């Protein structure tokens, strides 16, 4: 049952990137990509808990969710959505540059992704500050007082009854938990990007071994997609009036 595979041994000597426990580079690449997809699956389950909570509470406290949602800025949210979609484009271009072995282009596109990620986090910080000033942070400085009066911007909304107004805390709890977890993923992403840029500058991913950049790209796109779901769910509830 033991047999030798001469071609595998030949491969060993060829590529400096082949780790000792893989038979060949193709197996190595497939393995890491598969691992990355599985990791993203765990991430889906991680965010899934939050989405599940959102689904239930939105059904129960729909008026509170509408009122809470109307306090968010569509302009900032939409800008952030655009920023993230652009960053997905720059990330895709970074992967392409890596494939084409263009070192400077790779560094450039990665830097552009970092900048866009930074812009997103900056805008998010502005939004968080606004929430703080409006006393919309549950637990720390929350006040439901604003929700028991008519909202001048949304004349069709009825003011909430006091007990429903209290339920806006659930909306804002979920808002902070979901966007906070997303922002944490962005911060981790940007930190990894900084390492990637430094290594890419040294020529790391432009000599035929690009799995790291490719897999990081998957992560980055995943984080973008989470936002694509968060934006309508949190910002766009009953905005049609």
């Amino acid at each position, binding site marked *: *049952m*033991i*047999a*030798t*595979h001469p071609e*595998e041994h030949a491969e060993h000597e060829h590529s400096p990137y082949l780790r*000792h*426990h*893989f*038979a060949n580079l193709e*197996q190595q690449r*497939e*393995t*890491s990509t*598969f*691992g990355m997809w*599985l*990791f993203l*699956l*765990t*991430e889906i*389950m*991680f*965010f*899934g*808990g*939050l989405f*599940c*909570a959102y689904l*239930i*509470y939105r059904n129960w*406290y729909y008026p*509170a969710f509408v009122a809470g949602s109307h306090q968010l800025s569509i302009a900032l949210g939409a800008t952030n959505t655009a920023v993230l979609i652009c960053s997905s484009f720059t990330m895709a271009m970074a992967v392409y540059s890596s494939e084409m072995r263009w070192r400077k282009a790779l560094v450039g596109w990665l830097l552009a992704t970092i900048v866009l990620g930074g812009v997103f986090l900056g805008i998010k910080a502005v939004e968080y500050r606004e929430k703080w000033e409006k006393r919309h*942070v*549950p*637990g*720390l400085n929350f006040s439901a007082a604003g929700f028991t009066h008519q909202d001048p911007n949304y004349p069709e909304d009825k003011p909430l009854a006091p007990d429903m107004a*209290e*339920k806006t*805390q*659930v909306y*804002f*709890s*979920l808002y*902070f*938990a979901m966007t906070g*977890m997303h922002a944490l993923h962005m911060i981790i992403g940007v930190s990894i990007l900084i390492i990637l840029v430094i290594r890419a500058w040294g020529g790391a991913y432009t000599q035929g071994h690009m799995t790291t950049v490719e897999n990081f790209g998957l992560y980055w796109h995943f984080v973008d997609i989470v936002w694509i779901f968060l934006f309508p769910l949190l910002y766009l509830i009953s905005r049609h009036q």
Partner: protein
Amino acid sequence: MSTIVMLPDQQTASLPKRSYLNEEYGLKSWLLTGDHKRIAILYLISITIFFFIGGFFAGMIRLELLTPPSDLMAADTYNKMFTMHGIIMVFLFLVPSVPATIGNFLIPIMVGAKDLAFPKINLLSWYLYVLGGILVLAALTLGGVDTGWTFTTPLSTHYLNTHVITAGLAIFVAGFSSIFTGLNFIVTIHRMRAPGMTWFRLPLFVWSHYAASVLMVLGTPVLAITLVLVILERVIGIGVFDPAKGGDPLLFQHLFWFYSHPAVYIMILPGFGVISEVISTFSRKRVFGYTAVAFSSVAIAVFGFFVWAHHMFIMGVSNYSALVFSLLTMLVAVPSAIKIFNWSFTLYKGSITFETPMLYAFGFIGLFTIGGLTGVFLGSMGMDIHLTETYFIVAHFHFVMVGGMLMAFLAGIHFWWPKMTGRMYPEGISKLAALTTFIGFNLTFFPQFILGYLGMPRRYAAYPPEFQVLNVLSTAGATVLGVGYVLPLLYLAWSLKYGKIAGSNPWQATGLEWQIQSPPLTTNFVETPVVDYEAYDYEWLANKTKHEVQTVG
């Protein structure tokens, strides 16, 4: 149908000159290793430490319950005791027990690979486990936690001033260690199989680890986010589970049990894998209904995700959903029963020998069957309302987890000890230990079924005097059980230096791991193996040994 294989006399065996154990020396070579076998040993040492810490708390619980009043310790100290016992045993012992030690050691070898797919992530997973363990010990030394291992809200978020945050973080971190282990296994089993090692030639050990890994990968992240929400609720005061702010504490239970019920299968499935290997080897027969056993693991993994609400029948879920979950709970008993029946049929007309791993495996089959069947009692709603939150529940899950999983773990450790260390454990005393464990276990936990049925609630330091006789029996049993667990620790340590040299295949077993030297080389195989036979093919082994002399060393 069984085939007896005679290999060259193991007395002449000698330890190989080079192996993974002496490839490199020094603490650094262990702490920075990428070798799955060394990481398995690191895990084995750390889970053993935590097992005995958790066992200490169990001892304290049993000591307190020796007498009816709460006299040895105050009631809140008692709460901390059972909480620490639960947290340590579940998250730091049972979840990583078989997969992270035996599985880590064997899965690459069984699929014919040189290592797991991601050696660095494997090492990272051990470090995360250790960090989680240190956080648990920190929570313990700072003053303990008394939520119970279930962290039930709003008790954990509002009404306790113990170290819930530290303990929650610990489980969060340890959870990632288990996610990474599962991820590594799945990728390895998919992508690293040797030429000729098809899915249906994989040993059942690999199948059951595959199913458990799916549960780890899909379930653990949900626990992670749930704990994050509990911690945020405690630290900041967000309102996801807080009824005062509109949150629903029941949602916490749903999310928690969505992980923690599958976690039961994370714990038990790898044990099933061990039992399949042991039963087949010591009956000299292919596992009866290989495909059924393989798919029953997968079925358990799938059904396991849809039964969580049976932990919540008395907690205000709707009658209709309780009905559905009750039905699904009965269904999940079917694949478990398939396994038990298939193992029994494997024994039928086999050439059975009674080595220590086999004794543990017999213990497993008996005790797991009782544990599983009482699970069906608890899954039917009427019975559950009477029995839940009593000692019946405690007895039920200890039969599954301790009688089942711990027996399987010990069976596995004894079975593969020669492969891991190159030396045999002492046969006589280990049989005694297996017997002691079995007797001690039954004496400890069987009275608890009766106590629970009579209505003694769990998680109280005091109880009415009429329950004392059964509690004394249980405490006496726990003492015997403790001896049964300390014995292996002693003689296995002894055997590291004085045990008989095992040789490569002391059990005349068929798996790939038995065809290489013990202890294995760092790269496992000298050349990539090509597999052209089914798992448990004793005919193949017989033919093989006819033609060639087994080389040892």
